[in-house]
């Protein structure tokens, strides 16, 4: 017989082992679905792998997809460290996209446009995140619920915008006008879509890591998240820390939207985000809220997304398997996290 026993410390190698274990478990569990769809499991995973990481072009495509999830993953990781339950990265991303699209459509020199787009997008995301944070600090409103519900509000506001004032009067499509050509993010490798925003995402991760681990703000975020009472008695202004965290988290999610507008779509439409904000939660959990871990976790999910499309074309397995893999990975990781708190022991015979 086996039973769970409380653990007093967690070995360091767990940080690496747990996500890998969760991913392995996910792929095994999902192979059943592939078999059910009548395709070869190894063949399908093979196609997924080559299509997403098999050559340098595939890799750049995967990175382009990973970029927004790195930003939303960082947004969620920062927020969850302070136990500010920001489920609203999706709405913050959309707000960032809209704001940067506004700015990008104004004629001005390219570099200035890009800078202002980033600032506007970050500010818009931060402003959206401020709502659930303020409601929680001032009125003790549950932040999970308020940040989640706000996603729908933002989404329908965006729809109203592209169906209304922004609607393309010529074609009638519900899309915004494009941003100025000069505001398009430069492509770094000729013939690919690898844009400047991807590099920004890759640079953001170590910066956020530094902020969490090495700055007093990061210290306050960690302590507030783990024990707000001790933080308060220790002279930390807990409400102020929560608000700062929310602003930072929202700004990061907003930047995800900026990258999509400036580097990928050059305009805003209703499906600009296939749920990158929600994927950010999966990414942050796989990374165990470590900003450095967010990068590989986001790349994994991006590879699953690009890979699943190719697999569906090659083997006929529906592409929404990618959503199933994401969901399963989150559940597997949550189960795996149990092992940081408990260990399994065999109950030996007594007497």
């Amino acid at each position, binding site marked *: 017989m086996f039973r769970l026993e409380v653990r007093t410390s967690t070995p360091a190698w767990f940080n690496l082992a747990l996500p890998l274990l969760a991913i392995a478990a996910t792929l095994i569990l999902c192979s059943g679905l592939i078999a059910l769809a009548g395709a070869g499991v190894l063949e399908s995973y093979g196609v997924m792998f080559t299509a997403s990481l098999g050559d340098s072009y595939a890799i750049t495509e995967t990175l382009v997809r990973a970029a927004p999830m790195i930003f939303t993953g960082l947004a969620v990781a920062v927020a969850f460290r302070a136990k500010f339950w920001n489920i609203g990265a999706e709405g913050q991303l959309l707000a960032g996209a809209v704001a940067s699209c506004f700015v990008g459509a104004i004629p001005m020199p390219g570099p200035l446009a890009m800078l202002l787009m980033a600032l506007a997008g970050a500010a818009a995301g931060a402003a959206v995140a401020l709502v659930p944070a303020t409601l929680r600090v001032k009125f003790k409103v549950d932040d999970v619920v308020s940040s989640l519900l706000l996603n729908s509000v933002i989404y329908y506001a965006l729809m109203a915008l592209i169906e209304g004032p922004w609607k393309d009067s010529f074609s009638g499509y519900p899309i915004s006008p494009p941003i100025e050509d000069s505001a398009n993010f430069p492509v770094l490798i000729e013939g690919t879509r690898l844009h400047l925003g991807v590099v920004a995402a890759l640079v953001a991760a170590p910066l956020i890591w530094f902020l969490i681990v*090495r700055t007093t703000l990061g210290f306050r975020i960690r*302590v507030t998240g783990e024990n707000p009472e001790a*933080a308060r008695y220790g002279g*930390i202004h807990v409400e102020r820390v929560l608000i700062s965290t929310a602003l930072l988290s929202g700004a990061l999610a907003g930047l995800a939207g900026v990258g999509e507008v400036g580097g990928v779509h050059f305009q805003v439409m209703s499906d600009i985000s296939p749920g990158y904000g929600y994927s950010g939660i999966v990414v942050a959990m796989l990374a165990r809220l470590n900003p450095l871990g967010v990068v590989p976790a986001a790349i994994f999910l991006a590879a699953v997304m690009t890979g699943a499309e190719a697999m569906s074309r090659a083997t006929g397995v529906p592409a929404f398997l990618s959503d199933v893999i994401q969901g399963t990975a989150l559940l597997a990781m949550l189960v795996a996290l149990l092992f940081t708190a408990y260990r399994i022991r065999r109950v030996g015979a007594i007497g």
Partner: protein
Amino acid sequence: MSAPLIEMRGITKTFGALKANEAVDLSVAPGEILGLLGENGAGKTTLMNVLFGAYAPDAGEILIQGRPVRITSSADALAAGIGMVHQHFHLAPRLTVLENLLIGIPGKSGRIDRTGGLARLAEISSQHGLTLDPDLPVSALSVGEQQRLEIVKALFRGARLLILDEPTAVLAPSEVEGLFSALRSMAAQGLGIIFISHKLNEVRALTHRCTVLRHGRVAGRVDDPANTTSAAMAQLMCGHEIVPPARGPSVPGAGVLTLDGISTSRHSGTALRDVSLAVRAGEILGIAGVSGNGQRALAEVISGVRAPDAGRMTIAGQTVSRFSPREVQALGLGRIPEDRMTTGLVTNLPLADSMVLPRIGTSAFSARGLLKPDAIRAFAEEQIKAYDIRCPGPMTRAGALSGGNLQKALLARELAFDPKVLIVSQPTRGLDIGAARFIHEKFLDMRAKGCGIIVIGEDMEELLVLCDRIAVMYEGRIAGTLDSADATVARLGLLMTGAEGHG
């Protein structure tokens, strides 16, 4: 006595490299109250968790009435007639007393047997004097009542052996006698009881026999606790003699903490009503009183987490204006809280983080918003060495430390910055004699250095040993202040019940 009710033979339990229990033998006869003694970390709780099925032992066997049994879960333990009252209660706060009792007990055809439950509760209550209102939600019960409910719960399920892990640590002195008479009445009916406590006078008053653990092994047994001195028991526990520290005469200086007409509004618990106090440099002032008479509000005001509605407070001559923890700290206040885990430390983060928490913004540990990780680590390492805090290192999770070591860590963190005033609540709750002695010594050192110390406590013996003056709180007021030379338990007791005093 008759054959043992329960016998543990050769129990060994290891956590990694640590042997928490090693070849421990223990037995309890029906009707016997067994004391289980030992320093912090000696392995008492671990041994009881093995008996209760929470841990599987690495070696050894458990016999109930001479028959070997396997206990692998608390359900097994309950079925075998073993009940345990943990230090942290396991109750459902939103459910009523009766509902808590009936959890997990199969009712008639899927329905809760309310009448049967009420009758059984009434029977148990009247037998042992454990009265409880069956319809009150648990969240409305005092700590003492919750403990009573845990005991009744165990009896409800037919426990023949009851384990109590430091039950008196959470009780006011006045509640202890009630608990003891209930336990005696249960023993008289043939129940076996295992009683864990660090307070040796309680052990001597209650138990029939004691088993003493040291470093996980049985260090000795005491067959006649009532006629054994506390000093002899302490020696058995620690392996060496414990001498109480001597409090020399002090020369109090100027007032370092003054409260002048402080009142608070009702918030949670008793409010303060026109409290005036002064602690002078080089003096230890005790605050005695039955808990719930405003001590909590007093500690909150002094710590700067609650602003009073009226009155003035000064620290080292400076008026406190904003009442924030940061302000009072900056003026020179150190604080050692009663609840180490909730308002003191951050259990899930490295110990070093907790040790620098109140001063993270100062130049010692950060500059221009950046932490100084080397300084933080060095500080923690230094304190770990200076205070002999037992742990693998500064990066250990704070929650993994034992109570005594946590208390030392908090003490180290506050004393490192030479506070002018120190406010302390229940400084030795849950600590063994040796650790308590160490803490007392540190307070006396600080006093000699000219620090003013205010100790809020319920243990009058401790206050009498430690304090120069003792003020008694009653219903949010200072009922009177006595010089410790004139103070006796009896005089303090009188003030604590609200009798008018002059001092």
